[in-house]
């Protein structure tokens, strides 16, 4: 492998690692937000159910 190939590999790897890590953080943020909304929906539902019991 020529030394230029190593140079290209190095910079490509660096870009992939940094952007990949960024993607991981953003995806996890999305998941946490979705979970948060889910939680809020279920608490709102249960709170409403408590206020107006079906029976």
């Amino acid at each position, binding site marked *: 492998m020529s*030394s230029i190939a190593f140079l290209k590999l190095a910079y490509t790897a*660096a870009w992939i690692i940094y952007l990949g890590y960024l993607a991981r953080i953003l995806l996890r*943020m999305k998941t946490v937000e979705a979970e*948060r909304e889910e939680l809020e929906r*279920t*608490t709102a539902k249960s709170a409403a159910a408590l206020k107006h019991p079906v029976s």
Partner: protein
Amino acid sequence: MKKLAITSIVLIVALLGITSYFALAVAPTEATMGDVQRIFYYHVSSGWVGMLCFFVNFVASIVYLWKRSAASDALAEASAEVGVVFCGVLLLLGTLWAKPVWGIWWTWDARLTTTLVLWLIYVSYLVLRRFSAGGQTQVLAAAFAIFGFADVPIVYMSIRWFRTQHPSPVIGGGAGSGMAPAIWHVFLLTLVAFTILGAVFVWLRYKLATQEQALESAHAQAALKGVA
């Protein structure tokens, strides 16, 4: 969330792009090693950010043990993870630089070995955080972080002595060993840009950590109220 994602992607790509452009196109070709020397800009800058992050982790851990604030714990977690990533890039780029220039992927010389040990210590910190069950992860992790950072000078000294006794090929000259002005300028630029890059990553990861903390306490609240 969308806005945050777009801003951070643009910012990070811009920082990587500018530094890559300067490192690959603007900086002059080095006389002895040729173009492959350009790896050096990313290699050293990543290392610098990694070490900075580990220091932030140390300070944040002490603050956490003292103040017990969620924010300092989030910062400790964020800086450790970002530090491991950047230090990992340092190690990887180091091997990719070593092979064409020195003919070997790796050698147990003082600098490389010290960096590897440091990286291992902070990986074990992250493993401890991941595998801790129960609500006291933060305290245990913070205590461990102090051990880890206190070890840094000892690791450095002992490996340096070991390598004085048993010399082996040294990878690459020192970062400041007689750099031509053009190279020095690009190096400084990359260093500053990477510091900003590191700060952006730590801030993002910190935000994620605080969000996860909030989610956890929201779950706890809901469980208490008996509604979830």
